[in-house]
Protein backbone atom coordinates (compact mmCIF):
# COMPACT_ATOMS: atom_id res chain seq x y z
CA UNK A 1 0.00 0.00 0.00
CA UNK A 2 1.62 3.23 1.07
CA UNK A 3 5.01 1.56 1.42
CA UNK A 4 4.70 0.31 -2.14
CA UNK A 5 3.78 3.80 -3.29
CA UNK A 6 6.85 5.20 -1.57
CA UNK A 7 9.03 2.65 -3.34
CA UNK A 8 7.35 3.58 -6.59
CA UNK A 9 8.02 7.25 -5.84
CA UNK A 10 11.69 6.41 -5.26
CA UNK A 11 11.88 4.59 -8.59
CA UNK A 12 10.22 7.36 -10.52
CA UNK A 13 12.05 10.23 -8.87
CA UNK A 14 15.05 11.25 -10.85
CA UNK A 15 17.58 13.99 -10.50
CA UNK A 16 20.58 14.26 -12.76
CA UNK A 17 23.93 14.58 -11.07
CA UNK A 18 26.22 17.30 -12.30
CA UNK A 19 29.27 15.51 -10.96
CA UNK A 20 31.81 14.21 -13.45
CA UNK A 21 34.10 11.41 -12.36
CA UNK A 22 37.21 13.35 -13.42
CA UNK A 23 36.18 16.38 -11.34
CA UNK A 24 35.41 14.15 -8.37
CA UNK A 25 38.95 12.83 -8.63
CA UNK A 26 40.48 16.31 -8.86
CA UNK A 27 38.63 17.53 -5.79
CA UNK A 28 39.34 14.36 -3.85
CA UNK A 29 43.01 14.57 -4.73
CA UNK A 30 43.22 18.23 -3.74
CA UNK A 31 41.41 17.57 -0.48
CA UNK A 32 43.68 14.64 0.26
CA UNK A 33 46.75 16.78 -0.25
CA UNK A 34 45.36 19.50 1.96
CA UNK A 35 44.67 16.98 4.65
CA UNK A 36 48.19 15.70 4.54
CA UNK A 37 49.59 19.20 4.72
CA UNK A 38 47.24 20.64 7.29
CA UNK A 39 48.19 20.12 10.90
CA UNK A 40 44.97 21.36 12.41
CA UNK A 41 41.96 19.12 12.66
CA UNK A 42 39.58 21.22 10.63
CA UNK A 43 37.61 19.84 7.73
CA UNK A 44 39.56 17.95 5.14
CA UNK A 45 36.82 18.73 2.73
CA UNK A 46 37.20 22.46 2.54
CA UNK A 47 37.34 22.52 -1.21
CA UNK A 48 34.80 19.89 -1.86
CA UNK A 49 31.50 21.62 -2.30
CA UNK A 50 32.97 24.74 -3.80
CA UNK A 51 32.57 23.77 -7.38
CA UNK A 52 29.03 22.63 -6.80
CA UNK A 53 28.21 26.10 -5.53
CA UNK A 54 30.10 27.82 -8.30
CA UNK A 55 28.43 25.74 -10.99
CA UNK A 56 24.88 26.24 -9.88
CA UNK A 57 23.17 27.63 -12.95
CA UNK A 58 21.53 30.91 -12.07
CA UNK A 59 18.77 30.18 -14.57
CA UNK A 60 17.63 27.22 -12.52
CA UNK A 61 16.20 29.43 -9.81
CA UNK A 62 12.77 31.02 -9.94
CA UNK A 63 12.52 34.78 -10.35
CA UNK A 64 13.34 36.73 -7.22
CA UNK A 65 10.34 38.57 -5.80
CA UNK A 66 10.58 42.34 -5.88
CA UNK A 67 12.48 43.87 -3.01
CA UNK A 68 10.83 47.00 -1.81
CA UNK A 69 13.61 49.05 -0.27
CA UNK A 70 17.16 50.06 -1.02
CA UNK A 71 20.21 49.76 1.20
CA UNK A 72 20.86 53.06 2.96
CA UNK A 73 23.76 55.24 1.82
CA UNK A 74 26.86 54.25 3.69
CA UNK A 75 25.78 50.61 4.07
CA UNK A 76 28.89 48.59 3.40
CA UNK A 77 29.93 44.94 3.39
CA UNK A 78 33.33 43.53 4.23
CA UNK A 79 34.53 39.97 4.59
CA UNK A 80 35.81 38.74 7.94
CA UNK A 81 39.34 37.29 7.76
CA UNK A 82 39.56 33.49 7.88
CA UNK A 83 42.11 31.50 9.88
CA UNK A 84 45.02 30.15 7.82
CA UNK A 85 44.06 27.25 5.60
CA UNK A 86 40.33 28.00 5.56
CA UNK A 87 38.97 29.36 2.32
CA UNK A 88 35.28 29.88 2.97
CA UNK A 89 32.86 30.24 5.80
CA UNK A 90 29.69 31.60 7.25
CA UNK A 91 28.50 33.38 10.37
CA UNK A 92 26.33 31.60 12.95
CA UNK A 93 25.87 34.27 15.63
CA UNK A 94 27.27 37.46 17.15
CA UNK A 95 27.00 39.19 20.49
CA UNK A 96 24.81 42.33 20.75
CA UNK A 97 27.80 44.66 20.49
CA UNK A 98 29.20 42.98 17.39
CA UNK A 99 32.56 42.55 19.11
CA UNK A 100 32.36 38.74 19.11
CA UNK A 101 31.25 36.83 16.02
CA UNK A 102 30.88 33.04 15.69
CA UNK A 103 31.19 31.20 12.41
CA UNK A 104 31.91 27.91 10.69
CA UNK A 105 34.24 27.03 7.83
CA UNK A 106 32.69 26.05 4.54
CA UNK A 107 32.06 23.34 3.80
CA UNK A 108 31.66 22.07 7.31
CA UNK A 109 32.52 18.37 7.20
CA UNK A 110 30.11 16.71 9.56
CA UNK A 111 31.90 13.42 9.41
CA UNK A 112 34.70 15.19 11.25
CA UNK A 113 34.50 16.82 14.70
CA UNK A 114 32.96 20.31 14.68
CA UNK A 115 35.01 23.39 13.93
CA UNK A 116 34.00 26.86 15.14
CA UNK A 117 35.64 30.20 14.34
CA UNK A 118 35.46 33.00 16.92
CA UNK A 119 36.26 36.53 15.78
CA UNK A 120 37.16 39.00 18.52
CA UNK A 121 37.32 42.58 17.25
CA UNK A 122 37.70 41.12 13.75
CA UNK A 123 40.55 38.72 14.59
CA UNK A 124 39.70 35.04 14.01
CA UNK A 125 40.71 32.06 16.09
CA UNK A 126 39.66 28.42 15.97
CA UNK A 127 37.92 27.11 19.07
CA UNK A 128 38.86 23.64 20.32
CA UNK A 129 37.92 20.99 17.76
CA UNK A 130 34.73 19.11 18.55
CA UNK A 131 32.92 22.15 19.99
CA UNK A 132 30.17 23.68 17.83
CA UNK A 133 29.41 27.22 19.02
CA UNK A 134 25.80 28.36 18.69
CA UNK A 135 25.69 31.73 20.49
CA UNK A 136 27.94 34.28 22.20
CA UNK A 137 27.30 37.15 24.62
CA UNK A 138 29.02 40.52 25.11
CA UNK A 139 31.38 39.01 27.71
CA UNK A 140 32.64 36.52 25.13
CA UNK A 141 30.92 33.53 26.77
CA UNK A 142 30.21 31.06 23.95
CA UNK A 143 27.36 28.52 24.27
CA UNK A 144 27.31 25.45 22.09
CA UNK A 145 27.45 21.71 21.70
CA UNK A 146 30.21 19.20 22.37
CA UNK A 147 30.16 15.88 20.55
CA UNK A 148 27.96 14.87 17.68
CA UNK A 149 24.54 13.51 16.89
CA UNK A 150 23.34 11.12 19.59
CA UNK A 151 26.30 11.93 21.83
CA UNK A 152 25.89 15.70 21.94
CA UNK A 153 26.10 17.69 25.18
CA UNK A 154 25.49 21.33 25.98
CA UNK A 155 28.80 23.07 26.59
CA UNK A 156 30.44 26.47 26.89
CA UNK A 157 33.72 27.94 25.77
CA UNK A 158 35.01 30.30 28.45
CA UNK A 159 38.41 31.47 29.57
CA UNK A 160 40.07 29.59 26.74
CA UNK A 161 38.55 26.18 27.43
CA UNK A 162 35.46 24.13 26.63
CA UNK A 163 33.42 22.77 29.55
CA UNK A 164 30.29 20.65 29.47
CA UNK A 165 27.23 22.11 31.17
CA UNK A 166 25.68 19.92 33.88
CA UNK A 167 22.95 17.76 32.37
CA UNK A 168 19.52 17.54 34.01
CA UNK A 169 19.09 14.26 35.89
CA UNK A 170 18.50 11.40 33.47
CA UNK A 171 19.21 13.40 30.29
CA UNK A 172 20.74 11.39 27.45
CA UNK A 173 21.59 14.36 25.20
CA UNK A 174 21.54 18.13 25.53
CA UNK A 175 22.34 21.22 23.50
CA UNK A 176 22.80 24.92 24.27
CA UNK A 177 21.40 27.34 21.70
CA UNK A 178 21.35 30.83 23.23
CA UNK A 179 23.04 32.94 25.90
CA UNK A 180 22.01 36.32 27.34
CA UNK A 181 23.93 39.27 28.77
CA UNK A 182 24.00 37.90 32.30
CA UNK A 183 25.23 34.49 31.19
CA UNK A 184 22.02 32.48 31.39
CA UNK A 185 22.07 29.78 28.74
CA UNK A 186 18.99 28.31 27.09
CA UNK A 187 18.89 24.95 25.39
CA UNK A 188 17.13 21.64 25.18
CA UNK A 189 17.73 18.37 27.04
CA UNK A 190 16.51 14.99 25.81
CA UNK A 191 15.22 12.51 28.36
CA UNK A 192 14.27 8.88 27.85
CA UNK A 193 10.60 8.72 26.90
CA UNK A 194 8.02 7.15 24.66
CA UNK A 195 8.50 6.14 21.88
CA UNK A 196 12.14 7.22 21.98
CA UNK A 197 12.83 10.36 24.00
CA UNK A 198 11.16 13.50 25.19
CA UNK A 199 12.58 16.99 24.83
CA UNK A 200 12.64 19.64 27.55
CA UNK A 201 13.65 23.27 27.19
CA UNK A 202 16.19 24.11 29.89
CA UNK A 203 17.92 27.17 31.31
CA UNK A 204 21.33 27.03 32.93
CA UNK A 205 21.80 29.81 35.50
CA UNK A 206 24.84 32.10 35.25
CA UNK A 207 27.85 30.15 36.44
CA UNK A 208 26.33 27.06 34.83
CA UNK A 209 24.77 25.41 37.87
CA UNK A 210 22.02 22.83 37.74
CA UNK A 211 19.61 23.68 34.90
CA UNK A 212 15.93 24.40 35.33
CA UNK A 213 13.46 22.48 33.15
CA UNK A 214 10.80 24.52 31.35
CA UNK A 215 7.60 22.51 31.18
CA UNK A 216 4.28 22.67 29.43
CA UNK A 217 1.81 20.01 30.54
CA UNK A 218 4.09 17.10 29.74
CA UNK A 219 4.58 18.04 26.10
CA UNK A 220 7.95 18.25 24.40
CA UNK A 221 9.40 21.74 24.89
CA UNK A 222 12.24 23.34 22.92
CA UNK A 223 14.13 26.56 23.68
CA UNK A 224 15.24 28.83 20.84
CA UNK A 225 16.33 32.08 22.50
CA UNK A 226 16.79 33.80 25.85
CA UNK A 227 16.31 37.55 26.41
CA UNK A 228 18.42 39.56 28.84
CA UNK A 229 15.60 39.53 31.42
CA UNK A 230 15.58 35.71 31.39
CA UNK A 231 12.51 35.28 29.17
CA UNK A 232 12.86 32.14 27.06
CA UNK A 233 11.13 31.77 23.69
CA UNK A 234 10.68 28.41 22.00
CA UNK A 235 8.17 25.83 20.88
CA UNK A 236 5.98 23.18 22.47
CA UNK A 237 5.38 19.86 20.76
CA UNK A 238 6.50 19.28 17.21
CA UNK A 239 5.81 22.74 15.75
CA UNK A 240 2.59 22.79 17.77
CA UNK A 241 2.79 26.24 19.30
CA UNK A 242 5.24 29.11 19.78
CA UNK A 243 5.78 29.56 23.50
CA UNK A 244 7.42 31.76 26.11
CA UNK A 245 8.55 31.22 29.68
CA UNK A 246 9.20 34.02 32.16
CA UNK A 247 12.40 34.14 34.18
CA UNK A 248 10.43 32.49 36.99
CA UNK A 249 9.57 29.59 34.67
CA UNK A 250 5.89 30.39 34.08
CA UNK A 251 4.90 29.42 30.54
CA UNK A 252 2.35 30.88 28.14
CA UNK A 253 1.56 30.23 24.50
CA UNK A 254 2.36 33.09 22.16
CA UNK A 255 -0.69 34.20 20.18
CA UNK A 256 -1.12 33.19 16.55
CA UNK A 257 -2.56 35.30 13.74
CA UNK A 258 -6.19 34.56 13.02
CA UNK A 259 -6.59 31.41 10.91
CA UNK A 260 -3.29 29.89 12.03
CA UNK A 261 -3.20 26.93 14.40
CA UNK A 262 0.44 25.99 15.01
CA UNK A 263 3.95 27.34 14.75
CA UNK A 264 7.36 27.84 16.28
CA UNK A 265 9.20 30.47 18.31
CA UNK A 266 12.66 31.02 16.84
CA UNK A 267 14.46 33.97 18.45
CA UNK A 268 14.08 36.72 21.07
CA UNK A 269 15.84 40.02 21.76
CA UNK A 270 14.55 42.50 24.32
CA UNK A 271 10.80 42.90 23.89
CA UNK A 272 10.71 41.25 20.49
CA UNK A 273 10.32 37.61 19.51
CA UNK A 274 10.15 36.14 16.01
CA UNK A 275 8.92 32.83 14.71
CA UNK A 276 6.43 31.30 12.36
CA UNK A 277 2.77 30.36 12.31
CA UNK A 278 1.22 27.57 10.27
CA UNK A 279 -2.31 26.65 9.30
CA UNK A 280 -1.34 23.17 10.52
CA UNK A 281 -1.59 22.22 14.17
CA UNK A 282 1.79 20.51 13.91
CA UNK A 283 2.19 17.53 16.16
CA UNK A 284 4.19 14.35 16.09
CA UNK A 285 1.95 12.68 13.52
CA UNK A 286 2.42 15.51 11.01
CA UNK A 287 -1.31 15.42 10.30
CA UNK A 288 -2.63 18.19 8.01
CA UNK A 289 0.81 19.71 7.53
CA UNK A 290 0.86 18.79 3.86
CA UNK A 291 -1.32 21.58 2.59
CA UNK A 292 -0.48 24.01 5.36
CA UNK A 293 0.54 27.57 4.77
CA UNK A 294 3.02 29.30 7.03
CA UNK A 295 4.00 32.89 7.68
CA UNK A 296 6.64 34.78 9.59
CA UNK A 297 5.36 36.24 12.88
CA UNK A 298 6.83 38.92 15.13
CA UNK A 299 5.61 39.38 18.69
CA UNK A 300 6.07 42.29 21.05
CA UNK A 301 6.30 40.49 24.37
CA UNK A 302 5.61 43.63 26.40
CA UNK A 303 2.49 44.86 24.61
CA UNK A 304 1.28 41.51 23.27
CA UNK A 305 1.06 42.99 19.77
CA UNK A 306 1.71 40.67 16.85
CA UNK A 307 2.32 41.20 13.17
CA UNK A 308 2.92 38.66 10.43
CA UNK A 309 3.60 38.03 6.77
CA UNK A 310 6.93 39.81 6.48
CA UNK A 311 8.70 38.77 3.27
CA UNK A 312 11.91 37.57 4.85
CA UNK A 313 13.09 34.27 6.29
CA UNK A 314 14.42 35.64 9.56
CA UNK A 315 17.28 34.28 11.61
CA UNK A 316 17.42 37.07 14.17
CA UNK A 317 15.48 40.01 15.60
CA UNK A 318 16.99 43.26 16.89
CA UNK A 319 16.14 45.10 20.10
CA UNK A 320 14.19 47.56 17.93
CA UNK A 321 12.22 44.77 16.23
CA UNK A 322 14.09 44.69 12.91
CA UNK A 323 14.51 41.22 11.35
CA UNK A 324 17.62 39.91 9.60
CA UNK A 325 17.73 36.91 7.33
CA UNK A 326 17.28 35.86 3.76
CA UNK A 327 15.09 37.63 1.25
CA UNK A 328 14.07 36.76 -2.28
CA UNK A 329 15.61 33.47 -3.22
CA UNK A 330 18.98 33.58 -1.56
CA UNK A 331 19.95 37.14 -0.79
CA UNK A 332 20.88 38.86 2.46
CA UNK A 333 18.42 41.39 3.78
CA UNK A 334 16.79 43.03 6.74
CA UNK A 335 13.16 43.88 7.37
CA UNK A 336 12.59 47.14 9.19
CA UNK A 337 9.39 49.12 9.70
CA UNK A 338 7.52 47.25 6.97
CA UNK A 339 10.25 47.48 4.36
CA UNK A 340 12.68 44.85 3.13
CA UNK A 341 16.14 46.32 2.77
CA UNK A 342 18.56 44.32 0.60
CA UNK A 343 22.13 44.11 1.85
CA UNK A 344 25.02 44.45 -0.61
CA UNK A 345 27.02 41.34 -1.48
CA UNK A 346 30.75 40.97 -2.06
CA UNK A 347 31.94 41.73 -5.58
CA UNK A 348 30.84 38.94 -7.92
CA UNK A 349 28.61 37.27 -5.33
CA UNK A 350 24.98 36.60 -6.12
CA UNK A 351 23.83 34.77 -3.01
CA UNK A 352 24.00 35.31 0.70
CA UNK A 353 22.07 35.64 3.94
CA UNK A 354 22.15 37.61 7.13
CA UNK A 355 22.62 35.42 10.21
CA UNK A 356 22.34 37.94 13.00
CA UNK A 357 21.60 41.61 13.62
CA UNK A 358 23.43 43.26 16.47
CA UNK A 359 22.36 45.82 19.07
CA UNK A 360 22.43 49.04 17.05
CA UNK A 361 20.16 47.47 14.41
CA UNK A 362 22.45 48.62 11.61
CA UNK A 363 25.26 46.11 11.97
CA UNK A 364 24.58 42.64 10.60
CA UNK A 365 26.71 39.51 10.22
CA UNK A 366 26.16 36.70 7.73
CA UNK A 367 27.62 35.36 4.54
CA UNK A 368 27.98 36.42 0.95
CA UNK A 369 29.12 34.40 -2.02
CA UNK A 370 32.24 35.68 -3.72
CA UNK A 371 33.20 35.79 -7.40
CA UNK A 372 34.71 32.30 -6.99
CA UNK A 373 31.40 30.97 -5.70
CA UNK A 374 32.77 30.35 -2.21
CA UNK A 375 30.76 31.78 0.67
CA UNK A 376 32.63 34.27 2.83
CA UNK A 377 31.70 35.36 6.36
CA UNK A 378 30.83 39.05 6.22
CA UNK A 379 29.93 42.01 8.36
CA UNK A 380 27.60 44.73 7.13
CA UNK A 381 27.81 48.14 8.77
CA UNK A 382 25.72 51.28 8.51
CA UNK A 383 22.83 49.37 6.94
Amino acid at each position, binding site marked *: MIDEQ*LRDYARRTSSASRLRAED*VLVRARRSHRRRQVALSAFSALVLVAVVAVALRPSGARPPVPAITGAAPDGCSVRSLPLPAGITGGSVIAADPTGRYVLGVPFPNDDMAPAVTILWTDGTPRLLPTGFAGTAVNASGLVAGISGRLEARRAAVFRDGAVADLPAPTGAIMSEAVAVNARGEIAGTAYLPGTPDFSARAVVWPPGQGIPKLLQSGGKDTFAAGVADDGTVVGTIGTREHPYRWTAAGAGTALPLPSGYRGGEGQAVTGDWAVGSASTSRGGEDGKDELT*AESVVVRWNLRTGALDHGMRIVPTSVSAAGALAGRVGRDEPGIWRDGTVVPLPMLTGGTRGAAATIVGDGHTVAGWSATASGLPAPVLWQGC
Partner: protein
Amino acid sequence: MRAEQEHEYVEYVRARIPRLHHVAYLILGDGDRADDAVQNALTVLYRRWHRIADVSNLDAYVHTMVVRVCLADRRRPWSRVLLRDAAPDGPVAGGEGRVDERLLIRQALDRLPERQRVVVVLRFLCDLPVAEVAQLIGRSEGTVKSRTAYALAALRRAIPSTTWSAP
Protein backbone atom coordinates in the same frame (compact mmCIF):
# COMPACT_ATOMS: atom_id res chain seq x y z
CA MET B 1 47.98 7.20 -5.18
CA ARG B 2 49.50 5.50 -8.19
CA ALA B 3 48.21 6.38 -11.65
CA GLU B 4 46.59 3.02 -12.30
CA GLN B 5 44.84 3.15 -8.93
CA GLU B 6 43.50 6.59 -9.78
CA HIS B 7 42.29 5.21 -13.07
CA GLU B 8 40.44 2.42 -11.28
CA TYR B 9 38.97 4.95 -8.87
CA VAL B 10 37.69 7.17 -11.68
CA GLU B 11 36.12 4.24 -13.50
CA TYR B 12 34.49 3.00 -10.31
CA VAL B 13 33.18 6.48 -9.51
CA ARG B 14 31.92 7.08 -13.04
CA ALA B 15 29.77 3.97 -12.92
CA ARG B 16 28.30 4.72 -9.47
CA ILE B 17 27.60 8.47 -9.57
CA PRO B 18 24.03 8.17 -10.90
CA ARG B 19 23.00 5.60 -8.28
CA LEU B 20 24.72 7.37 -5.39
CA HIS B 21 23.24 10.68 -6.45
CA HIS B 22 19.81 9.07 -6.56
CA VAL B 23 20.14 7.84 -2.98
CA ALA B 24 21.44 11.21 -1.76
CA TYR B 25 18.68 13.04 -3.62
CA LEU B 26 16.01 10.87 -2.01
CA ILE B 27 17.34 11.70 1.44
CA LEU B 28 18.09 15.38 0.91
CA GLY B 29 15.50 16.36 -1.70
CA ASP B 30 17.90 18.75 -3.42
CA GLY B 31 20.15 17.98 -6.36
CA ASP B 32 22.97 20.33 -5.39
CA ARG B 33 23.12 19.09 -1.82
CA ALA B 34 23.00 15.53 -3.12
CA ASP B 35 26.01 16.22 -5.33
CA ASP B 36 27.86 17.78 -2.39
CA ALA B 37 27.14 14.71 -0.27
CA VAL B 38 28.28 12.30 -3.00
CA GLN B 39 31.45 14.28 -3.54
CA ASN B 40 32.18 14.28 0.19
CA ALA B 41 31.71 10.53 0.43
CA LEU B 42 33.81 9.90 -2.67
CA THR B 43 36.56 12.10 -1.25
CA VAL B 44 36.71 9.90 1.81
CA LEU B 45 36.66 6.88 -0.47
CA TYR B 46 39.68 8.29 -2.33
CA ARG B 47 41.64 8.51 0.89
CA ARG B 48 40.84 4.89 1.69
CA TRP B 49 41.13 3.57 -1.86
CA HIS B 50 44.55 2.01 -1.39
CA ARG B 51 43.22 -0.31 1.29
CA ILE B 52 39.78 -0.77 -0.18
CA ALA B 53 40.67 -4.29 -1.30
CA ASP B 54 39.95 -5.30 2.29
CA VAL B 55 36.30 -4.33 1.92
CA SER B 56 34.18 -7.32 0.99
CA ASN B 57 31.19 -5.44 -0.43
CA LEU B 58 32.45 -2.17 -1.83
CA ASP B 59 29.13 -0.98 -3.25
CA ALA B 60 27.35 -1.46 0.06
CA TYR B 61 30.22 0.24 1.88
CA VAL B 62 30.10 3.31 -0.38
CA HIS B 63 26.31 3.39 -0.25
CA THR B 64 26.44 3.48 3.55
CA MET B 65 29.04 6.24 3.44
CA VAL B 66 26.80 8.39 1.25
CA VAL B 67 23.82 7.80 3.54
CA ARG B 68 25.90 8.81 6.57
CA VAL B 69 27.08 12.00 4.89
CA CYS B 70 23.48 12.83 3.99
CA LEU B 71 22.24 12.24 7.53
CA ALA B 72 24.99 14.47 8.87
CA ASP B 73 24.21 17.12 6.26
CA ARG B 74 20.60 17.30 7.37
CA ARG B 75 21.67 18.14 10.90
CA ARG B 76 24.38 20.69 10.42
CA PRO B 77 23.82 24.32 11.42
CA TRP B 78 25.09 25.38 8.04
CA SER B 79 22.00 23.99 6.35
CA ARG B 80 19.89 26.37 8.40
CA VAL B 81 21.70 29.31 6.93
CA LEU B 82 22.53 28.30 3.40
CA LEU B 83 20.05 25.70 2.45
CA ARG B 84 16.86 26.49 4.24
CA ASP B 85 13.76 25.97 2.16
CA ALA B 86 12.11 28.81 0.30
CA ALA B 87 10.49 31.57 2.33
CA PRO B 88 7.46 30.24 4.19
CA ASP B 89 5.06 32.41 2.31
CA GLY B 90 2.68 30.17 0.49
CA PRO B 91 0.87 26.84 0.49
CA VAL B 92 2.70 23.97 -1.14
CA ALA B 93 -0.26 22.45 -2.90
CA GLY B 94 -3.57 23.45 -4.38
CA GLY B 95 -6.54 21.20 -3.75
CA GLU B 96 -7.50 20.59 -7.32
CA GLY B 97 -5.63 17.43 -8.22
CA ARG B 98 -3.24 19.23 -10.51
CA VAL B 99 -0.34 18.97 -8.14
CA ASP B 100 2.44 16.69 -9.24
CA GLU B 101 2.05 13.58 -7.12
CA ARG B 102 5.77 13.35 -6.58
CA LEU B 103 5.89 16.90 -5.27
CA LEU B 104 3.04 16.03 -2.95
CA ILE B 105 4.88 13.01 -1.58
CA ARG B 106 8.12 14.94 -1.25
CA GLN B 107 6.35 17.67 0.69
CA ALA B 108 4.57 15.15 2.88
CA LEU B 109 7.92 13.55 3.65
CA ASP B 110 9.54 16.91 4.34
CA ARG B 111 6.83 17.73 6.82
CA LEU B 112 7.28 14.62 8.89
CA PRO B 113 9.22 15.10 12.11
CA GLU B 114 12.89 14.54 11.34
CA ARG B 115 13.21 11.31 13.32
CA GLN B 116 10.30 9.75 11.41
CA ARG B 117 11.31 11.04 8.01
CA VAL B 118 14.75 9.54 8.26
CA VAL B 119 13.46 6.03 8.91
CA VAL B 120 10.87 6.22 6.13
CA VAL B 121 13.41 7.47 3.61
CA LEU B 122 15.96 4.84 4.56
CA ARG B 123 13.46 1.99 4.81
CA PHE B 124 11.32 2.58 1.75
CA LEU B 125 13.08 5.02 -0.53
CA CYS B 126 16.56 3.58 -0.06
CA ASP B 127 15.16 0.09 0.56
CA LEU B 128 17.38 -0.68 3.53
CA PRO B 129 16.48 -3.46 5.98
CA VAL B 130 15.36 -2.56 9.51
CA ALA B 131 18.61 -3.80 11.03
CA GLU B 132 20.70 -1.57 8.80
CA VAL B 133 18.55 1.50 9.46
CA ALA B 134 18.83 0.83 13.20
CA GLN B 135 22.58 0.71 12.91
CA LEU B 136 22.78 3.86 10.78
CA ILE B 137 20.75 5.99 13.18
CA GLY B 138 22.10 4.37 16.33
CA ARG B 139 18.71 3.20 17.61
CA SER B 140 17.17 -0.18 18.36
CA GLU B 141 15.22 -2.10 15.72
CA GLY B 142 12.12 -1.66 17.86
CA THR B 143 12.53 2.12 17.68
CA VAL B 144 12.94 1.97 13.91
CA LYS B 145 9.74 -0.07 13.65
CA SER B 146 7.71 2.21 15.90
CA ARG B 147 8.89 5.33 14.10
CA THR B 148 8.09 3.70 10.78
CA ALA B 149 4.57 2.92 11.95
CA TYR B 150 3.95 6.47 13.14
CA ALA B 151 5.36 7.91 9.93
CA LEU B 152 3.34 5.71 7.60
CA ALA B 153 0.19 6.51 9.53
CA ALA B 154 0.94 10.21 9.17
CA LEU B 155 1.63 9.87 5.44
CA ARG B 156 -1.63 7.98 4.92
CA ARG B 157 -3.52 10.77 6.61
CA ALA B 158 -1.57 13.56 4.94
CA ILE B 159 -1.85 12.44 1.35
CA PRO B 160 -5.31 12.39 -0.23
CA SER B 161 -6.34 8.86 -1.04
CA THR B 162 -6.91 9.66 -4.73
CA THR B 163 -3.21 10.28 -5.03
CA TRP B 164 -2.59 6.69 -4.18
CA SER B 165 -4.59 5.20 -7.03
CA ALA B 166 -2.50 3.35 -9.57
CA PRO B 167 -0.80 5.65 -12.09
